[in-house]
């Protein structure tokens, strides 16, 4: 037991130091020490976790598709869809938990279609999921007539807004539990190992006897389902479902995943990396809010940080290519 813990620690340490995202986070944390703000209060730090939770949960799903050398840009639409579906079903008198289950299944169904198009029909994942995302956005607007809908059952709000022991937000707990489950799926099951294998080299994985189609397809289904879970949590947090959520979510989350070090070439990455990558973006927003930076300038900073980290990533790979 001792050795596994030590090995685990060593492994995570090595993974961490290789990451530019970690350096970015440390830089921000150190920078905030020099300013007199409310950044270092337990309230604010817990708030960062709470605000990050929805995007993080989506990111865990997206990570699966990225590891499989795929990409899912429809998650923004799915997030919206599941929130709207769950609220409308509850409002029509359905049992709350059944409604949430159906909403998550709707996300899984979208993932199934994406998987069919990408894996079975071998289409380009970027553009096809952009298309399905657009389609779902239209469906969302049609369902709600482009009006926000709110839930009449107050129990629904408590799912995301409650606090455990009055301190830790529920959302943070959901994020951690789901993160650990996906981590275990990737790390300790043959399914997860197969996913890495086929992301690394699709043909080699295929000839080694892995059922590549099923494995990759399931990654898309999981990605859709997790986006739907996040959508239910977001709607519960705001007690509103609206078709305008999620316009930027897909690219933002994908950026976070890539910033964390999960390579879009596939086969590399993990839940921890994605968690850290998205944390960079979330912390950046929080820090800039704390420092009172104007919102438009915040957008500039965010763009510059994204471009810089991805630039460094590409540049590193270019150097490596030229050395070899």
């Amino acid at each position, binding site marked *: 037991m001792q050795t596994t813990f030590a090995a685990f620690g060593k492994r995570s340490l090595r993974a961490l130091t290789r990451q530019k995202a970690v350096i970015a986070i440390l830089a921000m944390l150190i920078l905030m020490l020099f300013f007199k703000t409310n950044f270092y209060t337990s309230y604010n730090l817990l708030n960062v976790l709470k605000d990050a939770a929805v995007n993080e949960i989506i990111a865990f799903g997206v990570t699966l598709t990225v590891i499989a050398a795929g*990409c899912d840009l429809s998650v923004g639409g799915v997030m919206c869809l599941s929130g709207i579906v769950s609220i409308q079903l509850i409002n029509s008198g359905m049992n709350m938990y059944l409604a949430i289950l159906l909403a998550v299944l709707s996300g899984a169904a979208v993932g199934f279609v994406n998987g069919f*198009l990408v894996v079975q*029909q*071998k*289409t*380009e994942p*970027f*553009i*096809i999921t*952009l*298309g*399905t*995302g*657009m*389609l*779902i*956005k*239209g*469906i969302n*607007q*049609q369902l709600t*007539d*482009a009006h926000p809908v709110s839930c009449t059952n107050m129990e629904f709000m408590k799912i995301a807004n409650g606090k455990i022991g009055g301190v830790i937000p529920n959302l943070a707990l959901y994020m951690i539990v789901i993160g650990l489950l996906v981590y275990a799926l990737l790390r300790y099951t043959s399914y997860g190992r197969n996913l890495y294998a086929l992301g690394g080299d699709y043909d080699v994985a295929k000839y080694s006897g892995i059922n590549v189609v099923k494995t990759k397809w399931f990654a898309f289904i999981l990605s859709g389902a997790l986006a739907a879970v996040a959508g239910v949590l977001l709607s519960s947090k705001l007690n509103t479902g609206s078709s305008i959520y999620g316009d930027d979510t897909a*690219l933002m989350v*994908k*950026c976070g995943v*890539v910033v964390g070090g999960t390579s*879009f*070439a596939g086969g590399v990455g993990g839940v921890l990396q994605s968690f850290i990558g998205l944390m960079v973006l979330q912390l950046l927003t929080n820090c800039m809010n704390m420092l009172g930076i*104007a919102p*438009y*300038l915040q*957008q*500039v900073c*965010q*763009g*510059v940080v*994204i*471009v810089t980290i*991805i*630039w460094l990533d*590409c*540049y590193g*790979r*270019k150097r490596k*290519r030229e050395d070899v």
Partner: protein
Amino acid sequence: MTKRFNLKDFLLNYLVLVAIVLLVIITIIVEPKFLSGENLTNIMRQFGPLSFVSLGMTFVIIGGFIDLSVAGIISLVAVVTVSLIDPLGQVPALIIGIALGAFLGFLNSMVLISAGALTQAEALFITYGMSAVYSAVALIYTDGATQHMSWLTGDQSVFTAIGSGTVGIVSVSFLIFLVSLGALWVFHNKTYNGRAISYTGGNKVAAELSGIPIKRSVILIYTICGLMSAIGAVVLFSRITTAAPIIGKGYETNAILSVVVGGTTLKGGKGSVLRTVLGVLLITLMSNCMNLLGVSPYMQVVLKGAILVVAIWLDNRKEQ
């Protein structure tokens, strides 16, 4: 037997054309107003901004890249040009605006080249980040306020002509479109650099090994895309006479949509600006016809997404 096979081949290759004809026939039957002179001029004007952006995007996609920053470029060029009309006069403002678009495109290509980012995925994220920067600069530049051309005191006859002038029944913007289409077609098919872009898209490693200057191709691709987006921006704000700092939002997806629906493959190497015209025509006619037929705007989004998915799927079937 051979004849039937040819027909099937033709249909698969020109599916867009078939779709356009079907759409027009259905609309004429249900709503004869479609053929009225006003509506045809209207279609020509609606054809405007998107067609320019799509022409630029065609080169990016033929070259095997993608550009999400056109949204930011359109917004920034529009607000800068409108704000410069008063202090500098209209022609210098126009020139500066279009040069700015080309420069922003050039900037994209420099970031990509310096990073060695030669895949579509890397280009996607870098241009996404650049787009965030450009649109934020547009917001900062105007402090979030919409620029109205009616507030200007200077002469703006050129922009009025672009926006609402006609030569006979042909709108001025459509003429500009025809000229750029011709120029780009000649560039792509008849010049060395134009062909080099196709080779770059086909197989980057092979192209580089055979001595094709792929770096120059990347610079050209993105500069053309920025330039065409800037022209699109000018046509857009001339028509609606205001320039909001978020005016370009959504153009990136629509441009990619029309390029891909037209039949240029996303894998790069294959495609043509003429195909893109068909794609833009389908998207524009779809909006026009669905409006005439009274389809709800939400349903229109669903149909657009569905068409994109089906077009890519069919395109992929063709390859196999």
